């Protein structure tokens, strides 16, 4: 309770509240524009937050992260185009409802399910925070190294049908992190005698290249697309009543979101896949799925919106980001010399509570904003895509150049922009590179620290948490290989078909 009151005190600061408002409303607008998305927006804003207090900067980024999926549901339902990638599943049932003339019902369900998922996850986290505060300090170097390794393994196997590409890109991320002057023996690693490589690759530069500039290039090189204008008429509050009739689906889906958010490297897509499958299997009308089922929309939106709060757990408790957005947020901590991890959870629970409470407030803010501004937001989706590309490129420039006014940084970011464009065109994932960079650095430091404290590698097995994580790694790999083998035996299928 003391921590909650401390958290409220932190939040009662005009800068924090303003950041929360700007982040929440900005996140909805960004989410509503197909082709931008939270990662691009966060990447662009990241350097600007470095000059703010950590809680102010993080609140703004959290606002964007937590609210973009709400906005992403608008084009998913109305235009069959997801505003953010995680709204893709919402198109399956949202757009058929729009075609039936029930756009307001679909949007209302999406908003209420998102709200339910978000609040469910935050309440779970607030209730479990004391438990996490007890468990987190039991993670030493060995456990954090193994948790980061588990994150790498999971990010590879979670990309079913693309595991090989995810693997090579995750290792590329680890490689990028290792380039430059290392700080133990001061040797150069893969610098090819080039001075500009001595300081290595900055995470922000790579992130802005892969998310910002690449997205700008994709939009500018491709042909222009301008969706048809439309409006929504009807009561958007009704979805809350309908959601109550499907409370089982909403609760289980939110539960999947919480569980998948906590596990590094897994995230929204797996949560949605599990929720949607569960909802269809237990529905009285499974034939309606994909044709405008309310349960389908609830499963998709409740699960994806439950992920952001829980994704903060591995970041805050262990200092391990589970996906690209929390990896970006990690850099805000580093810039301010705040080290997320067991100590933060143990000593600054008020700070943690402030972040959770800000998520709670943002969900309320966003729903109120959406209920009254949906028709205005639909106009945002009308921005021509090539023009949008130009704006993203100019904004990405601010992000890269403001770091240290370096033309070299901009050239490197542009290089990663072209690389990101190729990956996006081929449908290959970008996230493993970012996670590889962040987790690679953590693994290097923590493995070195653990080896200094143990006599043989077998000492990894002498602590219960280490053993559990090692068993989890082995289980995940064996299960993945078994699935691949089973899919390979089925004639006429490819490994990715089951996704």
């Amino acid at each position, binding site marked *: 309770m003391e921590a909650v009151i401390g958290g409220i005190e932190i939040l009662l600061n005009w800068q924090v509240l303003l950041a929360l408002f700007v982040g929440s409303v900005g996140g909805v607008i960004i989410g509503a524009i197909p082709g931008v998305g939270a990662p691009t927006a966060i990447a662009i804003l990241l350097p*600007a937050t470095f000059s703010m207090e950590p809680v102010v900067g993080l609140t703004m980024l959290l606002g964007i992260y937590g609210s973009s999926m709400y906005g992403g549901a608008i084009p998913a339902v109305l235009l069959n185009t997801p505003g953010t990638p995680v709204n893709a599943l919402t198109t399956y049932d949202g757009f058929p409802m729009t075609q039936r003339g029930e756009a307001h019902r679909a949007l209302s369900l999406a908003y209420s399910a998102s709200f339910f998922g978000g609040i469910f996850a935050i309440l779970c986290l607030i209730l479990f925070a004391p438990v996490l505060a007890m468990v987190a300090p039991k993670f030493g170097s060995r456990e954090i190294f193994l948790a980061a390794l588990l994150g790498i393994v999971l990010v590879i196997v979670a990309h079913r049908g693309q595991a090989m590409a995810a693997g090579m890109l995750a290792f590329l991320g680890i490689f990028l992190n290792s380039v430059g002057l290392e700080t133990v023996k001061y040797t150069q690693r893969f610098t090819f005698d080039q001075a500009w490589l001595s300081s290595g690759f900055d995470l922000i530069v790579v992130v802005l290249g892969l998310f910002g500039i690449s997205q700008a290039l994709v939009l500018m090189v491709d042909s222009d697309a301008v969706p048809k204008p439309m409006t929504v008429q009807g009561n958007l509050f009704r979805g809350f009543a309908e959601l109550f009739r499907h409370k089982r689906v909403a609760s289980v889906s939110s539960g999947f979101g919480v569980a998948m958010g906590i596990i590094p490297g897994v995230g929204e897509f797996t949560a949605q896949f599990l929720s949607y499958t569960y909802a269809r299997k237990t529905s009285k009308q499974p034939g309606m799925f994909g044709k405008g089922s309310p349960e389908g929309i609830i499963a998709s939106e409740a699960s994806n919106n439950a992920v952001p709060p829980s994704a903060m757990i591995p970041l805050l408790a262990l200092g391990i980001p589970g996906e690209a957005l929390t990896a970006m947020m990690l850099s805000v901590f580093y810039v301010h010399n705040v080290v997320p991890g067991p100590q933060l959870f143990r000593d600054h629970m008020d700070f943690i509570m402030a972040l959770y409470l800000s998520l709670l407030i943002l969900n309320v803010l966003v729903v109120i904003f959406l209920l009254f501004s949906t028709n205005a937001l639909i106009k945002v989706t009308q921005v021509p895509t090539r*023009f949008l590309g130009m704006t993203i490129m100019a904004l990405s420039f601010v992000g890269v150049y403001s770091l240290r006014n370096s033309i070299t940084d901009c050239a490197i970011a542009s290089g990663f922009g072209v690389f990101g464009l190729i990956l996006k*065109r081929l449908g290959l994932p970008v996230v493993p590179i970012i996670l590889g960079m962040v987790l690679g650095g953590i693994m290097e430091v923590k493995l070195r620290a653990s080896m200094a404290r143990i006599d043989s590698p077998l000492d990894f097995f002498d602590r219960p948490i280490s053993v559990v994580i090692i068993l989890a790694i082995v289980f995940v790999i064996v299960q993945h290989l078994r699935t691949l083998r089973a899919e390979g035996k089925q004639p006429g299928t490819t490994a990715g078909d089951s996704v």
Partner: protein
Amino acid sequence: MSRLRSYLDVLQRERPPGDLVFALGFLAFCLFLFANLGEEVEWVSGMGLVSQPAFWPTVSVLGMLLFAILHVCGSLVSPRTPGRLQETVFWMRSLEYVAYLLVYVWSVPFLGYLPATVLFSLLVTFRLGYRKPVAYGAALLFAISVVLIFKSILQVNMPVGELYEHLPASLRRFAMSYL
């Protein structure tokens, strides 16, 4: 042979146009790094294996190489979708916009952030094929807004344009601080 074939079938996946070009290009990059492992990393005597400065670069290059080989195999055993050349041309076309961005970056310390951003926005809008005045109005408004938000309000770190030195004294300080 049939056993090898069944193992390779596991690697089958969707193969969009350009997939093989990318897979081979990435494999070539990995081989280049692998060939330079001896030169570009250092093994220090008297240190444990995992504490070696060379340990993680070696692990990452070997990991990349292994997965890149499997990715190429996956591409080769998967059904091809035509359009490789068009896709590669699409990738190359992005370089034109990269060039515009780099010219913009290069021009900021000379012209100043506001003039460079306005010029970049208007010229790229023209290049993208927009001809209606409303598009240029939107581009101008966007450029001014970006400068106001990031430079004037958020005070992000941007160099002062040399062009501002030639402004009247009363305007110079304002331009240097906020534009």
